[in-house]
């Protein structure tokens, strides 16, 4: 197995896993409170806000990647601020990839959490309220434990989705081995270079990995926590 993959492919695998792990962990921190706020929020502009957050689901990744590339350039506010703080540009860096992946995979973390929160019987919270728990205590002691399944699904989906990222990375990350060359890009390069045997090995790894992850998620969620459309991409 070790011989079947080139050292460069291994590097791409580790980089991809690192990116996916960091992205999904950060997404959980961002998406959990966001989904909770959204599930409790009623306003006529809500469909508008939900659409913006779901845009990465339907937008071609290259479109998203292009806008991100523009935003990451040192001439833009975001890119300029990044350069002045860290000393190097955001585009074509690992940090840039993390930021891009966060936006790209956000709906995949948000959706399961949002539906989990909206389906939660509010009477659990009302009971907790009468028992004297503050809204923070209710969230951490009641809401989160009761929504463990959607949270794990959200983590798994954003991880899997980040592993499968291609278009956005191509636009904002380029192809720097060890820095921005993720699995899908490495595979693309191998095919371009007609290294079909290497490409086969890498593809098979990715296929098995994705299959196992999804099987695990479906087995875990059992009854319908993945009820929304997985095949949106």
């Amino acid at each position: 197995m070790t011989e079947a993959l080139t050292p460069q492919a291994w590097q791409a695998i580790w980089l991809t896993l690192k990116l996916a792990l960091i992205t999904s962990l950060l997404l959980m921190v961002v998406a959990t409170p966001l989904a909770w706020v959204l599930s409790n929020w009623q306003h006529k502009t809500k469909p508008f806000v939900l659409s913006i957050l779901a845009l990465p689901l339907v937008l071609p990744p290259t479109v998203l990647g292009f806008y991100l590339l523009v935003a990451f350039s040192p001439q833009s506010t975001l890119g300029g601020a990044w350069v002045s703080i860290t000393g190097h540009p955001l585009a074509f860096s690992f940090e840039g990839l993390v930021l891009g992946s966060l936006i790209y995979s956000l709906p995949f973390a948000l959706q399961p959490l949002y539906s989990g929160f909206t389906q939660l019987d509010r009477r659990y919270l009302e009971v907790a309220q009468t028992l004297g728990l503050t809204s923070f205590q209710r969230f951490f002691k009641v809401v989160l434990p009761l929504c463990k399944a959607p949270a794990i699904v959200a983590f798994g989906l954003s991880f899997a989705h980040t592993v499968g990222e291609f278009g956005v990375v191509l636009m904002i990350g380029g192809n720097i081995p060890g820095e921005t060359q993720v699995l899908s890009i490495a595979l693309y390069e191998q095919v371009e270079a007609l290294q079909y045997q290497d490409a086969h090995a890498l593809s098979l790894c990715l296929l098995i990995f994705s299959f196992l992850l999804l099987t695990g998620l479906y087995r875990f969620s059992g009854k319908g926590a993945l009820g929304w459309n997985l095949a949106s991409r």
Partner: protein
Amino acid sequence: MEFSVSLEDRIKLDTHLNSNAKLIGITGPSGAGKSSLLRALAGFERNAQVTVNWHLPQANISEPKIGLVFQQPMLFPHLTVKGNLALAQQYASANAASYAQVIKGCEITHLLDKPIQALSGGEGQRVAIARALLNGPNVLLLDESLSALDIGLRHRVLAFITQLTMQLPMKCIWVSHDLQDLARYSDVMLIIEDQGLSYAGAAQDALYYLNNNSSQEHVFGVLQGCVIFPKELDRHSAPISGVPPHLPDDNNDVGVQEGVGVQESVGVQTGDGTASGLLDGYLCVDVLGHTLYAEAARGGDAVVPPANGDAIKLVITANEVSIDTATNTAATTMSIVNALPCTISEIKRDGLMGNASTSALVLLDVTPKESGKQSQILYARVSQLSLTRLNLRKGMRVVARFKMLRV
């Protein structure tokens, strides 16, 4: 106790109740707004306008803690029974009853280590009530929270809650469809129909209202009395003094203290071990100076057995009562032990059961032994045949007889 609740299209009421009432029963058809009322009182309805003065016995309670138990237990499934109780205890007020007492009173000792998913409906409801009690509410709202309990268990839990309302600064507002339960365990009752209040007042009067205004099949009366000391029985004398079978007058501020006084006197008497109102398992109850006999149902471990002087309610269905035109209550030639002198106040020939031609409902005013006491109402269902044979009519003095009751 006053409260006024207004929630658009769901409930609108404004009422003033006896401030000494500890247990407030609510009934009414489904969808009438009972749950909305409790939800509004609990503060869950943001659009509701609620003004309440609970008149809690302790003046220092500025913000009363309100507990609500739904019909569905809503126990947190990620915790065990113990975990649910522990969470309630963690945020409990100083008002909470002791853990041991609540576990015993709700009869959940054997459930403590079970996961929530393994509980039956009735077990879940008991755990939910225990969770609410351990949190130490000043006002406990029960929204059909005992509906899945069998009758014996329901009575034991209700007796336990009644006992807690005596011990703690706690009131209980409970919704139920079981009128006999409500009559027995409520001090005042509200009847809610069509998103509004159709009746509010003493439980026995609510019954009168219900018996007259609905097609109730099982009409029953409630007699209020107090448990008397067996020694008093031998002498056939008046009951021990000082125990009002009725709630103290609302306008009378010493009412609360009076209630406390009763409890204390009971405590002293139970101290010598002879003051229990039980005589060979029978309970002697004084109603308006007359002695009635009842069979004491076994209470739960946590429920103190009835003691001398305890106020008690007897539920007597109309079918249990027969009418005797011989007015000697001391007759010992028949097996029916209870006899109450009454005056017929009304005869409803058309009845309420639908079979109008064969039976009639007779309303009886129980005559107090000593004058000056307010009479109480009893119902008797008699056949049309008896009605004609005995020539029963309004204003006639008769004796109502009924067998030993279970309390």
